[in-house]
């Protein structure tokens, strides 16, 4: 690995102070993505500021009936936390669909949001990549792009966001709390990640001198009717080709409210208010689900190897909504899709 210095942050204020004085430094928490990026010469920080010991490890109820999750809560602890298992099982399932137990033990809640794409070309420093080296070109558009995006792409970048957890957080309307030199602010989850546009080097709207302190979940957890379905090249421990988070509030057979988010298809978890509105007031049946899928996938475009994702996503959306409506969420360990 390339040489760098190592310091520890004593508290959030110290972390912000340290990063402000050293713009080529990076925060490290779980390290599961950053250390890998350094090994691949994709990231080259001169200093790592260890924030893993910051006292941001609580999962607590908020005054408004929601839950506030400290940014340093490991993914495993979050997935198995009683409040999350009971009230936000969609989030629990999504977390457990990602990575391996080793990685989930290490990875932090905040770091999960900030993990970078697994586009092959982003990781291969010998190839052009606008995300890694702005202006150098995109090797994926005309390259091997089976894993790449079909929605929200640009001429500069067709990378996807790799997280499963974030797909559930998007569907649940989570709020990201951040702190920087100018104080604290909160960012709606849908505004946190960016589309590539002509600045694909920017994954998120977090500023370089800001730190994520917590993720907040609103009270509504959709604990009765939800499912997270992940389609991948092997049955476990692989990134999504397509994943779907679906959550419904039902009144008998009628959909009162619907949430629908896709993973593996775009630079950020993909939602559409039109698709969700189209489900509202409808009978929870296949024709309504198919219509929502068509709206959510409006404008989808393949790049050759990944054309299959459009049809796959459509079928996965219908199936996941059906699982949610039936109250039979996709099992993590039983791989049959029913």
């Amino acid at each position: 690995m390339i040489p760098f210095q190592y310091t520890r942050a004593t508290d959030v204020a110290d972390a912000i102070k340290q990063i402000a004085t050293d713009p080529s430094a990076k925060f490290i928490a779980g390290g599961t993505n950053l250390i890998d990026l350094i090994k691949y010469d994709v990231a080259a920080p001169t200093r790592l500021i260890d924030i893993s010991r910051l006292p941001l490890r609580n999962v607590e109820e908020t005054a408004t009936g929601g839950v506030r999750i400290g940014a340093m809560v490991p993914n495993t602890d979050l997935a198995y936390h009683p409040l999350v298992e009971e009230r936000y099982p969609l989030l629990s399932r999504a977390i457990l669909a990602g990575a391996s137990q080793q990685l989930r033990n290490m990875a932090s809640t905040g770091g999960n949001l900030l993990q970078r794409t697994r586009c092959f070309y982003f990781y291969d420093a010998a190839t052009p990549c606008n995300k890694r080296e702005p202006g150098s070109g995109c090797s994926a558009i005309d390259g091997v792009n089976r894993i790449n995006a079909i929605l929200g792409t640009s001429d500069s970048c067709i990378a996807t966001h790799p997280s499963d957890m974030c797909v559930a957080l998007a569907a649940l309307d989570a709020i990201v709390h951040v702190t920087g030199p100018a104080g604290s602010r909160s960012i709606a989850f849908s505004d946190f990640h960016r589309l590539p546009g002509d600045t694909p080097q920017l994954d998120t709207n977090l500023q370089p001198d800001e730190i994520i302190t917590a993720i907040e979940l609103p009270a509504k957890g959709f604990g009765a009717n939800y499912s997270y379905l992940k389609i991948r090249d092997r049955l476990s421990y692989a990134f999504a080709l397509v994943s779907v988070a679906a959550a419904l509030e039902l009144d008998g057979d009628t959909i009162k409210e619907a949430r629908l988010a896709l993973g593996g298809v775009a630079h950020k978890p993909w939602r559409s208010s039109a698709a969700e509105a189209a489900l509202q007031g409808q009978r929870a049946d296949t024709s309504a689900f198919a219509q929502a899928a068509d709206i959510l996938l409006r404008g989808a475009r393949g790049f050759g190897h990944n054309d299959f994702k459009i049809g796959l996503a459509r079928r996965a959306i219908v199936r996941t909504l059906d699982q949610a409506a039936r109250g039979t969420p996709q099992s993590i360990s039983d791989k049959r899709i029913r």
Partner: protein
Amino acid sequence: MTHSGTAAPPRARIAEVPEKIPVTLSVNRKPAKLLLAPWTTLLDALRDHLDLTGTKKGCDHGQCGACTVLVDGRRINSCLTLAVMQEGTEITTIEGLARDGELHPLQQAFIDHDAFQCGYCTSGQICSAAGLIADGKAKTADEIRELMSGNICRCGAYPNIVAAIQQAMERS
């Protein structure tokens, strides 16, 4: 957390190579005082500085699980953490599982069930399985397979690995 917003200039390097720093680890219930470059991974510290070569370097990218060790009883990939970040934790490697000359039940179960061929992934499999049993989240064979998916066995000894873990689980 990385700063995904900043495109780090790939070669904006510091002029001086940082000095080695003192790092105190607790490995297999023994303290170890080391002088390490800050970028030394826990895996390299164990293998190259403490001669604990039971922990294997497979992919070195968190994809194979051969480097799995236990930190405070939980399994992690030692290739993806810095040694210095593990100060104050209790690290257990495959060398620390046997007690008083007696094999750990998982080690015995792997022998009983012939749960390996080349053996390269075995230390990681056994440490991972120890973490799995401590977690208490797996009851069925399906659940064992899912929660052991971070450990790849290129020889394909998976059915025997699952059987070995089931045996150790029943006896724990």
